[in-house]
């Protein structure tokens, strides 16, 4: 993830605008980014890569944008990886054939009733606690009502006025490349809800009739939902462009209800972010957090983590927020940051040209190909979702014991981990990389638990091991190397039992095939030769076998020392201690001259 993010950011100069590099909240002054000069320098370097927007325009925007600040808030939907859906016993697996994981409950058949999966509460409490929120010990579910073909019941079970968790925060370390720095972003609320189904758009049946018909559950009499859709009773918000498009071209839509009823957590942030990179890092931290907690796979491509971003821009010094614009269709962290930066520059430009009133409250769509946002639908006022308490489900009552037991079982949070690594003396870059993936972090922790040298362990993991994983497309849990052996390897090198070079060889052996360091050393007879006499013998042998070169050396071609060292090493099968070898070789070469 991190690498994608960085790459994307390099492509885009606007991130580096020095606007709003500082922020005060609750009396805490957060660290600022690097000074403007340093940023300009970075920016210079990036210039050749700039594509969007054009160079000249960028310059002007950069200048103008110093006078504006952007306010960014994010709504995140996290799909929980519970075994079954939130209110029924259907499993959910991403990518299964349409409508193969449905039942009367998640299809909204007459007479069906939801039964709450208690894991949803557990996961929500975990996330609430990890986000430092205040939990509602008495909360409830509400119905959010609107019409949409992917919503089987005509309402979504959600939480309205009493969310399960409120008022938390999340700590984020910005990447070193962008000046680093620590930020704290507020969390407004966390609430539980269910996912809706998916619409499968196809033009004249690219989903073939046979397939769909075969997949229709026996209780579905009709699955086709006509051409011209839906003007629901109370709202016009549904006239979004997708529908209009379908109406216009007379295209059929099919509904896949596999996803309907899958539990979600909606996490709403305070409008605390100021730049695209901050927003992307916030989202990345949420991903890290849910993965650390094991409540979601946090995969943005699969839609397990979905971000809707609200961006508004105002002149610096103005306390009133500008008109906010929502951005959707963000399926990577880089698109989060790039779309925000595009949107900021768009809005700043409009403001600076005195056309600030042209910014309307709307939902915009991020187009990955064109790298820009386009209008999706204009809001004509607030939709009335007619929320009311879900009468089928009892209230959600948490006991202190329950919350405490969950609290005690929480894993170490990414933020705590990073601070711990930092204290160990690792560089920020190392800290961020190690703590980025819980599995890597666990591997690292296990390694240093075996008293391996911290810095060396970090280097091995992020160097050779990471490179191997990347080449072989493996995760750290899939490699054969175990932390204990890595610790052993590091100790062996440090203790001089084997050379660094041999160490590397062994490492790749361990990565690919497993086994123990000791076993491999023994099996391949790789113990470093540190006996001067033995080395001397080899040196003698080499010198004796290469009289011609020796003569040349003694004739002044001292560069040949390397040749001899190589030959000796070859004879020793790489086991000779290099220091000792050079020392003895030099002595021998020079002694007879």
């Amino acid at each position: 993830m991190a690498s994608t993010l960085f790459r994307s950011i390099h492509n885009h100069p606007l991130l580096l605008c020095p606007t709003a590099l500082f922020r005060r909240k609750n009396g805490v002054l957060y660290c600022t980014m690097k000074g403007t000069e340093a940023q300009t320098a970075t920016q210079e370097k990036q210039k050749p890569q700039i594509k969007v927007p054009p160079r000249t325009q960028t310059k002007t925007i950069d200048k103008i944008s110093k006078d504006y600040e952007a306010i960014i808030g994010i709504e995140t939907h996290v799909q929980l990886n519970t075994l079954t859906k939130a209110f029924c016993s259907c499993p959910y697996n991403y990518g299964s054939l349409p409508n193969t994981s449905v039942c009367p409950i998640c299809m909204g058949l007459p007479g069906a009733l939801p039964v709450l999966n208690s894991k949803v509460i557990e996961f929500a409490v975990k996330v609430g606690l990890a986000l430092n929120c205040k939990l509602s010990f008495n909360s409830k579910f509400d119905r959010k009502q609107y019409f949409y073909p992917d919503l089987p019941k005509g309402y979504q079970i959600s939480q309205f006025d009493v969310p399960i968790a409120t008022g938390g925060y999340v700590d984020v370390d910005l990447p070193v490349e962008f000046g680093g720095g620590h930020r704290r972003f507020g969390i407004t609320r966390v609430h539980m809800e269910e996912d809706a189904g998916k619409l499968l758009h196809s033009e004249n049946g690219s989903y073939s009739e046979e397939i769909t018909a075969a997949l229709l559950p026996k209780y579905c009499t009709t699955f086709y939902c006509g051409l011209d859709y839906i003007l629901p009773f109370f709202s016009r918000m549904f006239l979004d462009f997708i529908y209009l498009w379908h109406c216009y071209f007379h295209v059929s839509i099919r509904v896949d209800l596999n996803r309907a009823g899958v539990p979600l957590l909606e996490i709403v942030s305070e409008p605390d972010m100021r730049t695209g990179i901050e927003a992307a890092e916030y989202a990345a931290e949420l991903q890290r957090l849910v993965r650390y907690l094991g409540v979601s796979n946090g995969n943005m491509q699969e839609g397990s983590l979905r971000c809707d971003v609200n961006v508004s821009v105002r002149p610096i010094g103005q306390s009133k927020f500008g008109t906010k614009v929502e951005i959707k269709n963000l399926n990577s962290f880089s698109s989060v940051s790039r779309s925000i930066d595009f949107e900021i520059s768009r809005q700043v430009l409009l403001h600076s040209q005195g056309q600030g009133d042209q910014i309307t409250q709307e939902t915009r769509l991020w187009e990955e190909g064109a790298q820009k946002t386009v209008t999706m639908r204009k809001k004509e006022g607030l939709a009335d979702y007619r929320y009311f308490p879900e009468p089928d489900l009892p209230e959600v009552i948490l006991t202190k014991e329950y919350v405490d037991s969950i609290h005690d079982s929480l894993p170490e949070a990414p933020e705590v981990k990073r601070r711990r690594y930092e204290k160990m003396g690792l560089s920020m870059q190392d800290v961020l990389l190690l703590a980025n993936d819980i599995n890597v972090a666990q591997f690292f922790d296990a390694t240093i638990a075996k008293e391996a040298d911290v810095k060396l362990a970090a280097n091995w993991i992020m160097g050779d091991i990471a490179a191997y994983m990347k080449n072989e497309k493996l995760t750290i849990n899939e490699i054969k190397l175990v932390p204990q052996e890595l610790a052993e390897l590091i100790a062996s090198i440090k203790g001089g039992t084997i050379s660094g070079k041999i160490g590397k060889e062994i490492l790749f052996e361990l990565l690919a095939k497993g086994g123990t360091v000791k076993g491999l050393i023994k099996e391949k007879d790789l113990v470093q030769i540190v006996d001067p006499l033995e080395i001397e013998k080899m040196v003698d042998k080499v010198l004796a076998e290469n009289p011609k070169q020796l003569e040349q050396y003694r004739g002044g071609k001292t560069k040949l020392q390397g040749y001899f060292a190589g030959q000796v090493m070859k004879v020793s099968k790489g086991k000779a201690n290099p220091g000792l070898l050079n020392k003895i070789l030099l002595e021998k070469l020079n002694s007879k001259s």
Partner: protein
Amino acid sequence: MQRAQKLAGEFSRRQQTLSKSLNAFIAVADEQSLTEAAERAARDTPNKPLSDTFVAVKDNICTSDFPTTCASRGLTGYRSPYDATVVSRIRAAGGVIAGKTNLDEFGMGSHSLHSAFGPVQTESGHSAGGSSGGSAVAVATDQCHVALGTDTGGSVRLPAAFNSILGFKPSYGLVSRWGVVAYANSLDTVGFFAKDSAKMKDAFSESNGHDALDPTSLTSATRKRLDTVLASRSERSKLRFGIPEECIIQELSGPVRDAWKSTLLALQKAGHEIALVSLPSLPHALSAYYILAPAEASSNLAKYDGVRYGQQAPDSPHLGPLYARTRQHGFGTEVRRRILLGAYSLSANAIDNYFMQAQRVRRLLKQDFDSLFRLPNVLSNAKNEERDSGTIDVILMPTSATLPPKIDLVKEQAPLDAFATDVFTVPASLAGLPALSVPIADQIGLQVIGQYGDDHNVLNIGEVVASLKINNRHERVANVIDVPSRSRERRAWRRNLCLIADLKSDGAQPEEGLGQRILLHVCKQQEVEEVVWPRVRHVRELCLYVGNDGLAGKRLERGAVAADRHRAVRWVDEGQGRGRAAGRVVGRGVALGAAEPEALEVEESAARVLVIDGNGRRVGRVGQGVGEGLAVGAPASAEEGAVRVDAAVWAVVIWAKVFLEDRVLESVVGLAEVGLCAKAAICV
């Protein structure tokens, strides 16, 4: 086996004969398949409590072998892939499903006329009651032994009373709702019809039980607790019946009143006790019900969009978008009316004034009921010691205030007049209590309402009531419900009665003696100060009645009494001085006195104010918004004002009754926005 075959043949032939004239069934099995089903049941589940019992099922309960249509055009032909839990339980107990009975579409109606399959008829031409009219008629005309219905606001009890059979609504949560098509989830209960009390008990006992598929089903732990509470109750051969004074209303028709009176007399003669009790929030129950039930219905019925199942409207672009078209096509007028009503009362502008208020009324009503019964409510959190224990075993009141009307008359009724039919049945629904309608005379039923979970006792007492010999219809029941017919006298009577009951008898011990509620006839401020206030600190609620014809009322929460008492009394006095009755307070402040200056002075402290013209004897003078958007002031035309200030309307409907004792109040319900200008008749 032979008996089963014989019965199957008999029932099937009877169903065929009566199908045209009564239209009680939507779907029946033909003789052969019914016989086969009966044989199968006799073979697979022999010697069970319901063996050889033919059970008709209301068509909003899912069955896998018959279509489930809810009498709606939109669901015509829909077949559920699964059986409702109650149906599986009936089958497991040996019962044979005899067919699916007709109803008001989705259970919405009181006369079983709003069906896509035509109205349910009776042999007498009177209304069959609703919404489970088909089930009631099927039992009454011997087309089956037992029938399942659903009772949301009286849909089992009302048809049972109209058809002179037993109709039982169990406590909410005892019988699983899995597979019961939801109308109003928090009220829906599966109910039973039978002629024979033993069959009724069997059917109920077999259906009763925890179901993991229904989150509102009573848990096993609570069931155990309930059993302990029931077991610890001391056996009493003589019962104490409660008669809610709020049910003694002018609209009670003569025959019903006489039947009720005679029954009470007979009970008294048999050695049982009769006690006049009060359910102060009961008059608001009907309004609360007609806010809550449509609100939930508007949400529950949203799923019938024709996308996944059910009928889709014919494809024609002229008829509007698919959803609107399908729902317009699929739902009948009554269902559409209630969806609109519900959608309106849940909308952001209205929810606080309608839905939330109605929920408050519902809570109050539950508390009122709990304070009456000897048995504690296992669901209430209050510990037993804290509870002011009641004294009665069950409540006995009419199921319907009137005899069943002729079907032709019903068809001419305004929708809201039909709503009023449910006035006596909705209280038990709102409180989730078990209620049994016992046929006491032709087309007249009396309800036995018990404490939550006391279902078996209610069924037993029902037998006691049913077995009474009622002879002397004109004899008076010792002063208990001997209600004067003229309103002025009646008021005096009630006043006296309450004074006697609550105040005078306990005058010597003012601290403890007042009980929950006092109703006073107040003449002087001094009297109030010296006699009443010292005692009312612990009184939950207080009603002040000011002398002469004008009435002034006041009802406060526990803590609010002391704080506002001076002002309250002053308002009362001034109101009286002007010969007007007025004022009503909810929440923080006090509102009394009809004249404008007073009313306006109240603005600041009153969360909600309603001024009523006592002389005019109707709600009026609803003017400018005050406080949280409610009305005070006196514009020229009362009616106009009421329509304009729609936020105040809820208050009108709910609260007006307090001041207009003895009178039928007409007010305008502010639903003009959704095209539903409706008349609300609050019967007092």
